[in-house]
């Protein structure tokens, strides 16, 4: 029998993906939870009495996050008021099923749940959007809408903080992606544990240093029930390259994921983003004229996309939309066309 390298008492039942150490179940829980606790403490993510919304999709990351947040809140007495916040994109056969998981979590952890849907916020469900624009580019809509939806849901709940289940693999992959795509400004921001401006609710990623494999392992041993189906509309072309590469790196050297995050952190920009405050004479983040959400253009990306949908020009502002812009100019000579310039991306999620 092989003993656990950490406690030397119990039988080792697993090889830890992050370090390769052979350890027992209890030591695994201990190191897993301690690492998350260290991350929270070191970055001073919360204050006592904060109301914190856990962005819950029903998938593995957010289910484990809900569990770990509840556990740590009790164990270390963070004094947090926890909520579950879900976004219903309106994808039949995917989101409706995963929301059932979230509803069960609500019962298990006794945390109140709030669901906001695309349907009620924007008047369009993802199913309807896909019917309109097809399978290509639909992730653009979903991603832009979700970021806002989470913020709006959080505002409804009047919370002080949102935590998301982004894990170390996601972050390392984003670092690689941003290098490959040459997105320098996102490269400087993508490893930040907390994203905040003076006017939005701060968001953070307590699982920033937690390996995806360990999250699955934790859920497996704790018998947490989660919903594990890929989104039916997600093809993920370019990101797939980075993901496959990352998995290969991890298999060569398990610490590679942490190493990439370590590299990314060395490049972080120290500039704080403030809404409607000029930096070097230029307002970098303003607010949308229509909905008031933060935006780098006159209209935020969600409003532009929504306008396209409502006008029957859904490809507006996606990729190279000069052709659509011209079409729109013909139909509607109003000055609005200039906000659709694809060369200047609006305030999207940094990750």
């Amino acid at each position: 029998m092989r003993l656990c390298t950490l406690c030397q008492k119990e039988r080792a039942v697993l090889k830890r993906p992050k370090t390769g150490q052979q350890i027992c179940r209890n030591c695994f829980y201990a190191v897993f939870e301690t690492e998350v606790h260290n991350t929270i403490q070191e970055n001073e993510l919360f204050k006592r009495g904060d109301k914190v919304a856990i962005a819950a999709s029903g998938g593995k990351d957010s289910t484990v996050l809900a569990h770990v947040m509840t556990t740590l809140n009790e164990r270390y007495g963070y004094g947090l008021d926890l909520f579950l916040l879900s976004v219903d994109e309106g994808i039949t056969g995917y989101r409706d099923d995963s929301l059932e998981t979230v509803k069960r979590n609500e019962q298990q952890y006794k945390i109140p749940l709030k669901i906001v849907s695309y349907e009620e916020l924007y008047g369009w469900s993802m199913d309807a959007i896909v019917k309109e624009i097809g399978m290509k580019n639909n992730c653009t809509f979903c991603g832009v809408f979700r970021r806002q939806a989470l913020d709006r849901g959080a505002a409804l709940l009047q919370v002080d903080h949102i935590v998301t289940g982004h894990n170390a693999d996601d972050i390392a992959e984003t670092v690689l992606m941003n290098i490959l795509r040459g997105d320098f400004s996102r490269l400087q921001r993508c490893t930040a544990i907390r994203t905040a401006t003076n006017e939005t609710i701060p968001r953070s990623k307590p699982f920033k240093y937690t390996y995806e494999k360990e999250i699955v392992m934790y859920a497996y041993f704790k018998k947490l029930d989660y919903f594990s189906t890929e989104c039916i509309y997600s093809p993920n072309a370019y990101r797939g390259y980075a993901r496959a590469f990352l998995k290969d790196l991890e298999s060569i050297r398990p610490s590679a994921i942490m190493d990439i995050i370590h590299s990314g952190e060395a490049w972080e920009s120290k500039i704080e983003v403030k809404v409607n405050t000029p930096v070097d004479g230029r307002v970098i983040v303003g607010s949308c004229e229509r909905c008031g959400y933060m935006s780098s253009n006159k209209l935020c990306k969600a409003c532009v996309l929504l306008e396209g949908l409502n006008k029957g020009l859904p490809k507006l502002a996606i990729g190279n939309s000069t052709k659509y812009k011209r079409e729109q100019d013909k139909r509607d000579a109003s000055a609005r066309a200039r906000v659709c310039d694809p060369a200047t991306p609006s305030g999207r999620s940094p990750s």
Partner: protein
Amino acid sequence: MCSIEEEIQTGDAETPSIRSRRRLVVEGLCHKCKQSPPVVDMKRVMYCKTCFKESVVYRFRGNLMRATKIADGAKALVAFSGGASSRLLLHLLSEFHEPDPSNLRKKRKFSDVLICHVDQSAVLGGEDKEAEVRRIGEKSGFPYLHIPLESIFSNDDGSDGGALVPVGFDLADTVTLKMVHRVTSTLSPVARLRRSIHGLGKMTAKEDLLHHFTMRALLNTARKEGCNVLILGDNATRMAIRILALTSKGGGFGLPIEVAGDTDWFEGLVVARPLRDVLSKEVAVYNQYTDLDTVVMPALTTAMPAKSSIDRMTEEFLVGLQRDFPMTVNTVVRTAAKVTSEHRAKTVMRCPMCGGPIQDGTNDWRSGHTVSQLLSHAPSSDTTSEALSSTSNTHPCSTSCACAPTVNPESTSTSCCTPADQPINIIPYLCYPCQNICRDAQEFGATAAKKGIDDATVILPAYVGEEITMRKGREWMKKEIEEFLIDEED
């Protein structure tokens, strides 16, 4: 996680329109001179032979002339491996160094050019090819220096520097690699070199250490020969691979030094990479057009599967991606060139192993986010200090040693005690990526020790130990006089 950027297209269908949109193009003629038929297609631009060669020369010269850190009239050392890129480098430099026939009074950028070939054959084999490399090097007309890689185990004056050897391994303790300096060794320098590379176990670590050793040998030679510039033949593809691989190994902090066109990070020397925006394919095509002969040297991962090391894997990945997205390499190199880190801050130390910058707080970062020691009763910050206490406490040596607290610091100067006195855990003194190398060595050594093999474990050149000892001495001195130092910010 969903991608919200789906705009990227494979480009096949797009090609003609992109081509015609970019510039005025005459169909069937070179895009640049619009006179001769094109023969090369590089990143969707068609060149004729002359224009193609001109564009490579232009970029090379531009990079050298733009390198403001290189003083005019500097003495240059050119690293020459015999491979395609350094062959091209040699060729372009000898053209560059020719006096201008139309203006003989025009000053040349370099006063002198030397060629340095670091002979890695002790590790990689291929001894028979050294003569060919020498022949090509000497043909260029510049003085040719042949430096065996094992020379890094000697002192600057050529005497035997001894080596750093490990003392015992602990299978459970992955954060400690205790080593001690032995002044004499029965092993020949070649044998020491082989053991230091092959005592690492993993191919990724071997490649890294080999790279550091080679760089060290080049820098040593450059300093010894009184050169001000070291010119490397890294091409754009090689740089992009290095950028991604270095990122994946945790070397982001030192990346700005690695990608700079010219950098004065290394004391007394500027390191320049004039081929940094020439693709490896362009190098190959140019060499073919100019009949430049090269020597193919084996590398550590030659004929190995892609997954044998991080560098090899990254190469496979990037070259594959470049096939589908022809701007990948340039994008990666340019993005990395914009990256900044705080490696220039005053407090930043140099890594004794690779000479790169050491990021503050590396040890705490690692132990806090990868908890690998028992913590059932202690919070992890304690575990950290405990793990490091044996090495990083204020009195690095035992009381019997010269720098013990009872002894006057003046009498100790900077070398507080001879490295042979005490085993040191070297890991906390290294930069993050070099720590990864040593962890591999530790793991390999511990496994070997368990099997009863002890002549396969890593050894390191003496300079690593010397620099650590020096730093420990400095740290102790600083601690001793700290209260008398005036902080600028006060």
